[in-house]
């Protein structure tokens, strides 16, 4: 007999965990299928060795013109992310993007989303940092902004600052339980209400039954993700897709054969959140002379390795009166060696920029690097090609690295936004000889995003949105999407809080749909009690 449940959730990141918690708390039977492993606390290693937690929990899918980085574990992106949690500025909700009309549903604005932002901020325990929390790298960025007549803000974070050791190993999972990932709030709360989470279950497709849907999965080998050990099926009245914007549309594309045609916007309008990166190599002497910075141990900076991801952002260009594609935020952050070094280009190189003699010299100054992350407005130009046989990529390496079907050819609007952001960073950091700045190259793996969005988005216009404003998939009642793919477009800031607020906002509608299908579930709106004090989920 085929197993059945009330609600089947695909993926355990923000969109999945929030849905699983509320539906389970409301009384529904909930099963969460997660393709990645289930790690916690001491499993998170400080180690770049292939096969350590760093490669187990991480997913890097190279596409054609765009590579997508995301989480691959219970907790999804929350385990590997940097926990910067700002709200999106007001103007973002008024964007028109490529469609010549407001892309967000009429029912959503910053005002209407703020109560949902409040709720997730409480659950994720978002805090403001003081200048004592800000790392040297964040401080350097702030001082440079100030010197150039700009402002700079310590960003709100989901980090227990007392536990943080500034080790900068966040991308391998937090060893010190300082990052308040979903392993500390929504997921343990969902478990306590009876939800089941099944790691190493990769959903391939959805089909229809007489009364609902059937979800088909493969069992993934715990060490070599290229190997699958059979699979199975689960029936459910309601299916919630939350596999992330790089994976959700692929599951739907693969399901079209049995479910029937998908809305046109499934697998289209992908946004990389307008992301782009610059690396500055800092002149230590100028930092001391011009900015007056000193660590007190004879050093001015040399602190690239120290910190906790992004600390300080410049928001001067988050100005709604500027034209679309000219608005962006500039955030200092840390990317570790490997992913954070390969695409950096040597300034004034005579030969190749990202490898060779000049690049080696640039690496020798790694301690003096300062990475600036730009979140601009792109044009939703990403399109997914035909799906690979399984998952969302042909896996190349045992873990982490794969080749996907996303094609992204930046439009002149996107290129203009990147160019303006590059120019702004250069203006701030090359002033008075503080640093040399270069953008990361797009020639190697295309552009690079850790913020995949919009590949299955909400909207009012059925032609350009796959979901209605309740996150239900058009033409397929009972299927909902609550992850980053539902966000209509680039946000100009880090997206996790917005994804989460939208998921919270979608819950009452999902509960109502479940009730219509005879599921005994209610929405009472309680939030998870944080388990930070009682210890991590394991």
């Amino acid at each position: 007999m085929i197993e059945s449940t009330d609600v089947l959730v695909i993926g355990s990141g923000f969109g999945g965990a929030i849905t699983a918690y509320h539906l389970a708390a409301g009384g529904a039977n909930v099963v969460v299928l997660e393709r990645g492993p289930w790690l916690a606390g001491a499993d998170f290693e400080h180690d770049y060795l292939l096969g350590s937690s760093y490669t187990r929990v991480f997913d890097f899918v190279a596409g054609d013109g765009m590579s997508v980085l995301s989480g691959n574990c219970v907790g999804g992106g929350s385990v590997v992310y940097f926990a910067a949690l700002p709200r999106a500025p007001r103007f973002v909700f008024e964007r028109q993007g490529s469609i010549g009309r407001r892309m967000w549903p009429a029912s959503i604005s910053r005002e209407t989303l703020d109560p949902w932002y409040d709720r997730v901020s409480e659950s994720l325990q978002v805090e403001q940092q003081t200048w004592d929390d800000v790392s040297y790298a964040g401080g350097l960025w702030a001082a440079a902004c100030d010197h150039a007549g700009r402002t700079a803000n310590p960003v709100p974070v989901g980090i227990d600052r007392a536990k943080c050791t500034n080790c900068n190993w966040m991308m391998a999972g937090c060893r010190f339980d300082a990052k308040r990932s979903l392993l500390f709030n929504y997921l343990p709360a969902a478990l306590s209400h009876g939800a089941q989470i099944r790691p190493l279950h990769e959903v391939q497709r959805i089909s229809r039954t007489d009364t609902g849907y059937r979800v088909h999965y493969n069992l993934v080998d715990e060490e070599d993700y290229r190997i699958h050990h059979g699979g199975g099926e689960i029936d459910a009245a309601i299916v919630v897709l939350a596999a992330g914007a790089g994976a959700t549309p692929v599951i739907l594309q693969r399901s079209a054969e049995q479910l029937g045609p998908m809305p046109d916007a499934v697998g289209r309008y992908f946004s990389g959140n307008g992301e782009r990166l610059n690396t500055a190599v800092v002149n230590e002497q100028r930092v001391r002379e011009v900015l007056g910075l000193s660590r007190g141990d004879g050093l001015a900076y040399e602190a690239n390795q120290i910190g906790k991801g992004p600390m300080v952002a410049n928001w001067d260009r988050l100005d709604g009166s500027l034209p679309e594609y000219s608005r962006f935020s500039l955030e200092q952050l840390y990317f570790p060696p490997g992913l954070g070094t390969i695409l950096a280009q040597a300034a004034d190189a005579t030969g190749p920029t990202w490898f060779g003699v000049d690049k080696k010299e640039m690496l020798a100054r790694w301690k003096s690097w300062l990475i600036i992350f730009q979140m601009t407005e792109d044009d939703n130009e990403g399109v997914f090609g035909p799906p690979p046989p399984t998952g969302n990529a042909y896996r190349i390496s045992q873990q982490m690295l794969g080749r996907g079907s996303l094609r992204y050819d930046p439009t002149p609007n996107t290129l203009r936004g990147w160019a303006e952001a590059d120019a702004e960073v250069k203006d701030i950091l090359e002033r008075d000889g503080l640093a040399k700045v270069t953008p990361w190259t797009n020639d190697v793996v295309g552009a690079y995003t850790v913020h995949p969005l919009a590949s299955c988005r909400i909207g009012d216009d059925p032609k350009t949105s796959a979901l209605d404003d309740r996150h239900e998939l058009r033409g397929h009642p009972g299927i909902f999407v609550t992850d980053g793919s539902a966000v209509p477009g680039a946000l100009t800031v880090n997206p996790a809080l917005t994804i989460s607020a939208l998921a919270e906002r979608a819950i009452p509608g999902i509960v109502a749909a479940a009730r219509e299908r005879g599921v005994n579930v209610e929405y009472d709106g309680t939030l998870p009690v944080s388990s930070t004090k009682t210890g991590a989920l394991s």
Partner: protein
Amino acid sequence: MAHLNTARTLTLEAFADTIIPGEKRFDDDVAIAGAAPGPGAVAAGAMELLQTPATGVTAGLEHLADALNGHAQAYATELGITLRQPVPPFVELSFADRTALVQRLLTPGHPEKEGWVLLALFSNMAYDSAAHMHTTDAIAAGHPGLLAMGFSKPDVDGLWRFREHSYGRPLARRHPDTTPSGSPA
């Protein structure tokens, strides 16, 4: 580790040395061009990493080495370079020619670009992440890439902690439109 013959090993070493160049290991080292001071990708363990099956490139190394030599032969013919040495064609090319050829292979639009990108990626990672070793072992052994970059040492328990981490004072004005929750308005 997969077994590669000497010619293919020299070829792949020469490729890795083009990505992160280093000094020759011994006087008549033909694979390493000696284009930069200090150890490069090869000394950092590029061949060990490439021959780790978890990378997913190991099974393709023989093919990549042979294809690289094919391209080197064609490149030499095109530029009128005569190859005479008893070493593989790519190895015989000067560092400048190796670089020019590798740049061509890595250019967007080259039909084989993806394979060469993988080779470049792992050559680089051997140097800047030592992904074939436990990072603590790499640090203890004085891994040349991590050492050159100034990657700091961990605490005795093998974990990194930075007690001193902040200038500890306000360094900029906040954006005037910041909301009470610390977000942009």
